[in-house]
């Protein structure tokens, strides 16, 4: 009987020790009490907020200067605010793609093999890659890419800004990108994307060439394009 009780007590002591070890090995619960985000996630969020704040701070600083000029003008000033308005008008036009632009960049040429019909997805993929690479102006067959630009197939045509281009003909995509990155990163990366597209589509599809151009000219959006139709939008007063 005594031996049996000794066995029970020994088992209980072992169980208590097991529990003790489990508790000491467990990760500190306080970490999960702090919102459930890991340190890395928090640091990423901080970087994102810092970027946003820096951006907005710069914009506000310029707005503040502008307002001072306008106030000086209204108090009987020098006419400088007129020049500022002209500058601002032009900057918006450039940002909207309403002005032609020129600088170093890349030219991608897609030539379909005879009998092959170009896919809109291929053009979209390359345009999206260029946007992600920080291209500041893009044109597809001399059609300026703007906010509302669509690239889609409609039977035998690919439509860009509502203008149709034959799927059997060549397509040229031009873009202005950071000159410092063209040789070291942009061209090699685009060549790898082109290779991967060609692998997916097979040999009898399309040839893609990527080249650097020291002076790419990107045309302005033409005034008869659909982007100018804004009847469904109202500015908020």
């Amino acid at each position: 009987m005594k031996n049996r009780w000794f066995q029970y007590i020994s088992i209980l002591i072992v169980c208590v020790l097991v529990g003790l070890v489990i508790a000491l090995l467990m990760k500190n619960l306080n970490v999960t009490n702090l919102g459930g985000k890991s340190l890395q996630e928090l640091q990423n969020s901080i970087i994102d907020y810092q970027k946003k704040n820096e951006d907005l701070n710069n914009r506000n600083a310029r707005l503040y200067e502008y307002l001072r000029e306008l106030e000086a003008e209204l108090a009987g000033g020098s006419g400088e605010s007129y020049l500022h308005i002209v500058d601002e008008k032009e900057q918006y036009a450039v940002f909207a793609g309403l002005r032609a632009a020129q600088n170093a960049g890349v030219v991608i040429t897609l030539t379909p093999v005879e009998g092959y019909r170009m896919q809109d997805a291929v053009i979209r993929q390359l345009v999206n890659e260029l946007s992600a690479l920080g291209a500041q102006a893009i044109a597809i067959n001399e059609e300026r890419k703007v906010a509302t630009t669509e690239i889609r197939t409609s039977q035998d045509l690919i439509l860009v800004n509502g203008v149709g281009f034959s799927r059997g003909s060549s397509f040229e995509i031009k873009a202005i990108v950071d000159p410092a990155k063209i040789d070291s990163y942009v061209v090699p990366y685009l060549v790898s994307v082109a290779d991967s597209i060609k692998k997916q589509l097979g040999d009898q599809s399309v040839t893609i060439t990527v080249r650097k151009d020291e002076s790419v000219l990107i045309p302005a959006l033409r005034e008869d394009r659909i982007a100018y139709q804004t009847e469904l939008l109202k500015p908020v007063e």
Partner: protein
Amino acid sequence: MNRRIRMIAALMAVLAGISSGFLVRQMMETGKGEDQEVAAIRQAKEILTQEEERLALLQSQNFELEQRKKELLRRLEEYEDVSGILTEMRENAFLSAMTDVEGSGIVLTLDDKLDYDPLTDPIEAVIHDSTINYILNLLWAAGARAIAFNGVRLTAVSEISCVGPTILCYGIRQMPPYVIEAIGPGESMKTALETDSYLVHLIQAKIGIRRTITPEDELVLNSFSRTHDFLPYIGLLRTP
């Protein structure tokens, strides 16, 4: 003592051990100060809160400055003959997504598959930048006139890309659910989204992308300037 009682006793003993363990740990930590990781997380949270507060302040300042600018330009118009140039400037601002706009349209929300498991679920069960770009193209083609992605207005230079599984919009990380607000012909945009074969494929149960489309009579999309400075996006462009 029967078997059941012995089991309960053993469990109670383990629990007693765990409790004692936490007690011991607590006492040890009180002595040596907080765990380094916990301290780092707490500090990061404090910095994040400060940055969030700073953003809210900057946004409110930006709103006030923009309002003041509008007012001063209106007053300037009364004194000087600048109405022509101002009209042009406003038109260009409007076309470049630098004006808050309103109109009817739709709100589309997209989310990854619930409880996505990378080991068993297909890769399409997570939303990628290519999916977002595909949908945006679909909406523009259906007649959208203005679009915001997670509250950021899209412009001629809409940078939507990814780093690993994270989608970036103008270099800022975006988290699901992704919200796309589009002003334009609501019915046409809704039909385009509902009938597109790729999107229909994504929302099947076996893929599991979650999607909702809500028509809105009055949508307001903020200007790009509410979230970003536009000048860095035109710095490389020279006049020919």
